[in-house]
């Protein structure tokens, strides 16, 4: 059902041998990865396998123990010293949609989306507002722009969070289970919004449990297990014809659907 | 009300609660163990001896608390070198003077100042308006309208040492204080000051709660008799090395 979107563009993200530990637990055990421009990479894997941690390492919300991350020409080698400026520059290349949304509590839906455009990208207030309105409309929230996060339902918050990231149009957007609170209708809306943005050359990494969604939207899929990449390839390869027994077992559970 | 309405015990002896001001040595103060001490206490003890129908119970108390306490009836009477004023007479019953309090000027050695009249146009060391001295000097100035003395006000009374220092270094012209108080710190100063002759004096009185008319009458009578029989003059001789009553008569401030 999915169409392979072969990438002819340059490499935007390179991860090399990322390690991350919490206390004694080694959560990421050497992750290396390359993503091309405009590509949509889906990360699959079971709960607790380290997917969220990996995303957080990419934009330096967690500092890896070692390894290098380079995004769009901006590189940090975590084995060496790196400055706060480096981290900020790296981060400005990315936007993130959190698993728990993390909307700014003191801002309305619209302000949540505007904030990055106005403050970080220095767009005028009017311009920022216009773009933010458009991003909210794309996820079906035009009526809710003046609500504060506490006044929104779970799915509405999640969509604001998606709009906030999409509106920034960074080089890379990192999604952590962006459709977990969404119903099938909205999933397909979000799918459309994401695909549209991908067409403009934005690269995306999406952690998801919805295999259908992954298959539909992703051009590449990786399967993470216990902090390691077990398999990677096109959706057909990984989802429909997995090679690793672990992945086969995982996918087979879908069959009850 | 009347938690302090004196309790009468079986023998018909009434207990009287008397507060003593805690920070006015040598007149009335708490010793380092918190026990009442001072000249005023000695007077009270003499009075107690003379009043078999009363038994005094003493407690030392902070100045304002003691004043409020007597008015509220927590204590029946209060002692602590208090002067008499009209306003006070409206709030409390006042005894006749049981002692006289004399003021001197303390000036640098060799200063020409000998009396308050010499202070005309000059400035005294600042006085807290709640201090008895403040009332005394203003009272004197009222009686002597031709003399103009500046009396600066402060809200924190500096220590005696600092008062003398600020006169010694010329910031102010004189300290208005009693000789006894100067002598209390004279040895720690490191320089000598001149103490003028007494410049003013006033009687100090016991303050009673308004309900204590009987007590007032009884004590007043005894104060007079203790003065006449020489007990109190002797006591002043012992504490202040002078007969305060004789002095008061000489200065024409004697009121008994």
């Amino acid at each position, binding site marked *: 059902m999915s169409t392979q979107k072969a990438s002819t563009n340059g490499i935007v993200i390179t991860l090399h041998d990322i390690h991350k530990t919490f206390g004694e637990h080694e959560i990421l055990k050497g992750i290396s990865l390359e993503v091309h421009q405009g590509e949509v990479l889906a990360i699959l894997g079971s709960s607790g396998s380290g997917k969220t941690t990996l995303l957080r390492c990419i934009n330096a919300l967690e500092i890896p123990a070692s390894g290098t991350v380079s995004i769009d020409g901006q590189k940090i080698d975590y084995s060496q010293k790196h400055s706060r400026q480096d981290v900020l520059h790296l981060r400005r290349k990315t936007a993130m949609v959190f698993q728990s949304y993390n909307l700014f509590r003191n801002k309305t839906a619209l302000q949540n989306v505007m904030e990055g455009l106005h403050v970080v990208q220095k767009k005028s207030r009017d311009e920022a507002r216009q773009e933010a309105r458009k991003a909210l409309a794309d996820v079906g929230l035009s009526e809710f722009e003046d609500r504060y996060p506490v006044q929104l339902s779970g799915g509405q918050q999640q969509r604001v969070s998606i709009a906030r990231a999409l509106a920034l149009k960074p080089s890379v957007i990192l999604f952590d289970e962006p459709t977990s609170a969404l119903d099938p209708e909205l999933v397909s809306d979000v799918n459309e919004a994401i695909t549209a943005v991908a067409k403009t050359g934005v690269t995306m990494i999406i952690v998801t449990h919805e295999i259908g969604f992954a298959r539909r939207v992703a051009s590449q899929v990786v399967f993470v297990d216990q902090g390691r990449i077990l398999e990677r390839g096109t959706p057909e390869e990984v989802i429909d014809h997995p090679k690793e027994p672990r992945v086969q077992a995982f996918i087979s559970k879908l069959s009850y659907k | 009300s009347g*938690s302090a309405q004196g309790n009468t015990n079986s023998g018909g002896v009434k207990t009287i609660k008397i507060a003593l001001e805690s920070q006015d040595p040598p007149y009335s103060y708490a010793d*380092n163990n918190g026990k009442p001490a001072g000249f005023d206490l000695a007077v009270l003890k003499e009075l107690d001896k003379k009043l078999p129908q009363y038994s005094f119970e003493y407690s030392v*108390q*902070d100045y*304002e608390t003691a004043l409020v306490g007597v008015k509220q009836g*927590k204590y029946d009477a209060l002692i602590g070198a208090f002067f008499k004023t009209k306003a006070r007479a409206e709030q409390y019953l006042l005894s006749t003077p049981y002692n006289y309090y004399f003021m001197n000027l303390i000036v640098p050695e060799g200063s020409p100042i000998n009396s308050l009249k010499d202070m005309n146009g000059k400035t005294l060391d600042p006085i807290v308006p709640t201090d008895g001295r403040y009332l005394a000097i203003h009272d004197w100035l009222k009686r002597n309208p031709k003399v103009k003395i500046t009396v600066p006000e402060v809200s924190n009374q500096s220590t*005696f040492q600092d008062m003398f220092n600020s006169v010694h270094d010329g910031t102010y012209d004189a300290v208005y204080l009693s000789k006894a*108080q100067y002598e209390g710190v004279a040895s*720690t100063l490191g320089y000598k000051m001149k103490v003028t002759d007494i410049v003013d004096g006033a009687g100090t009185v016991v303050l009673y709660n308004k309900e204590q008319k009987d007590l007032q009458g009884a004590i007043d009578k005894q104060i007079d008799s203790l003065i006449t029989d020489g007990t109190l003059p002797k006591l002043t001789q012992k504490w202040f090395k002078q007969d305060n009553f004789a002095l008061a008569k000489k200065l024409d401030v004697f009121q008994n």
Partner: protein
Amino acid sequence: MPTHVLQSVLPGLLQQVPTTLLYWFVPSAIALLLGTLLCIVRVGQHRVLYWACTVFISFFRGTPGIVQIYIIFFGLPKLFWAVHVDIDGWPAGAYFIIATSLNLSCFVCEVLKGGYLGVDHGQIEAGKSIGFGRFQNFFRVIAPQTLQISILNLKNLEIDVLKDTSVAYTIGAMEILGYANRVISNQFGVGQLWILGVAAIIYFILCALLELGFTAASHHMERHGRRS
């Protein structure tokens, strides 16, 4: 001067430490309880109680301590006398403790209220959803998390109460600073700065201990917030 001060005054000052601690501890313990009760009313919905407490708190927060102490010291015995109970013989320290407890309770109440409003509502709902009754939810969920948020402010209140025990001497209850002032006045103010300096050091040591204790407690309470 210094050695003289140390020899003659220090023992006396140190003797006052237990009293100071007593004047600090009893009100603190009472205020924790009373402050909590006030706080429950203040965030509750019982209108009459709410306004009664609000006026009470506003009075004790808004008026000078000396007035409160006088009202308790002089007014309370009269109040009791009206119902034929004679408490006039109580030591001054007892009145001080009562006044301080009432005053502190009101400040504690407001601090706790701030903390309570900072507790994530989801936590409270989680408690309800597993069937906690009011008291269970209060002791199991609300109180610990409120305490965690409020602890720094509570610490400061406690430090202040410890220092404010010095007000006790105004009604004749003696403690460190009162003792120092007495000694100073008995020697006509000579050595004022030295004696107060020594008293200040004693206070400082006590307060530093409090500070350390509370910081440790706060650190302990926050253990679950640390990510690794």
